[in-house]
């Protein structure tokens, strides 16, 4: 059935039906860790998107020459290489953002979304389809992060992308660790509710 996936469906599944963060609950660490502001969320989302697209492409190109037994370690090495590329590029061209995201950039390596897509998609499908899949999943991840980052920044600091919406202070708890868990919990609860209503 999946063989007949059109490009459009392939792209959109990552954003909605199989959204890696909100539906499949993958890659939770950066989802919670860097979303104290909307701009951090976008930065992290795009960095992950780049790694997803590139590693999906590379893996689907070499999938036939890698023996099955060393498949996973090889995939991880390829992913780690692209993560390092992102790390170096960000340090050179967006140093402020790089300092903000810190540890979570190298940790893209162990983001389950990336290895998950390599294993579930790129190792089976053509290079073109894999790129589209990576793009869709990356966008889905970025949008979910943006949503969470926006809610937390607006409620917690009364600002959005650093622009102050009001002079007062906001509910600090949303910027802090507990707020991350609670906000994501409610977003998923709302999505569950909407899904129920539909069906």
């Amino acid at each position, binding site marked *: 059935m999946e063989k007949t996936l059109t490009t459009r469906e392939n792209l959109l599944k990552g954003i909605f039906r199989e959204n890696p963060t909100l539906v499949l609950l993958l890659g939770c660490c950066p989802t919670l860790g860097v979303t*104290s*502001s909307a701009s951090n969320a976008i930065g992290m989302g795009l960095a992950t998107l780049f790694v997803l697209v590139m590693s999906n492409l590379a893996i689907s190109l*070499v999938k036939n*020459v*890698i*023996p099955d*037994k*060393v498949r996973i*370690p*090889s995939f991880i*090495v*390829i992913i*780690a*290489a692209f993560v*390092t*590329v992102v790390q*170096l*590029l960000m*340090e*050179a*061209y967006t*140093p*402020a953002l790089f*300092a903000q995201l*810190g540890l979570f950039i190298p940790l893209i390596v162990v983001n389950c979304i990336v290895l998950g897509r390599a294993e579930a998609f790129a190792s089976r499908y053509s290079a073109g389809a894999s790129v589209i899949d990576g793009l869709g999943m990356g966008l889905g991840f970025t949008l979910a992060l943006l949503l969470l980052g926006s809610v937390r920044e607006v409620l*917690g*600091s009364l600002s959005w992308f650093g622009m102050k919406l009001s002079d007062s202070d906001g509910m*600090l708890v949303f*910027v*802090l*660790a507990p707020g991350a868990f609670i906000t994501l919990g409610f977003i998923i609860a709302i999505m569950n509710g909407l899904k129920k209503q539909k069906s």
Partner: protein
Amino acid sequence: MVIALVVVTAVSAVALGFVYQWTKEPIAKARLTTQLKAIEAVMTGYDNNPVQEKFFLSTENGDSLECFPGKKGGTPIGVAIKAKSSKGYSGDIWLMVGLDTAGTIRNIVVIEHKETPGLGSKMTSEKFLNQFLNTNPAVTDLRVKKDGGTIDAISGATISSRAFSQAVREAYQSYRHGKDAHH
């Protein structure tokens, strides 16, 4: 089988070597720009190149701090000191502290910190920073109020505030010390 893994690793490593070489210069440049911006933010009116004339100040516990002297027409007008505290809540805090020749604090910028967003991160807020501006640590006790000083700590982030204050005071002391040694 193992060969395949070795080949993948080797190819990745070589490719990364190229990317590293390629980004080496931009990264160095980006670091320099961050540093220059911080110096410009804490010191005004100099016409020399503080980065070229950089020297090191030693602190009481044996560390050394980078110090960027500002001069106008050859006469010193102040310094920008890259101060550090490892007593923060998580990771090191790096500041750039601008002092005039009398040791009065002209401005401070936070270069890097990993404090908790929403709490310790408020060390970059004007409300906190302004308490330090135009004070001379020789006259004003820049410790937090809890420790007997004059600084209102950030609420919920005494540790970060303490670390910040400590870095500023250390920068001042090593500057004074260095000056005394010269004369």
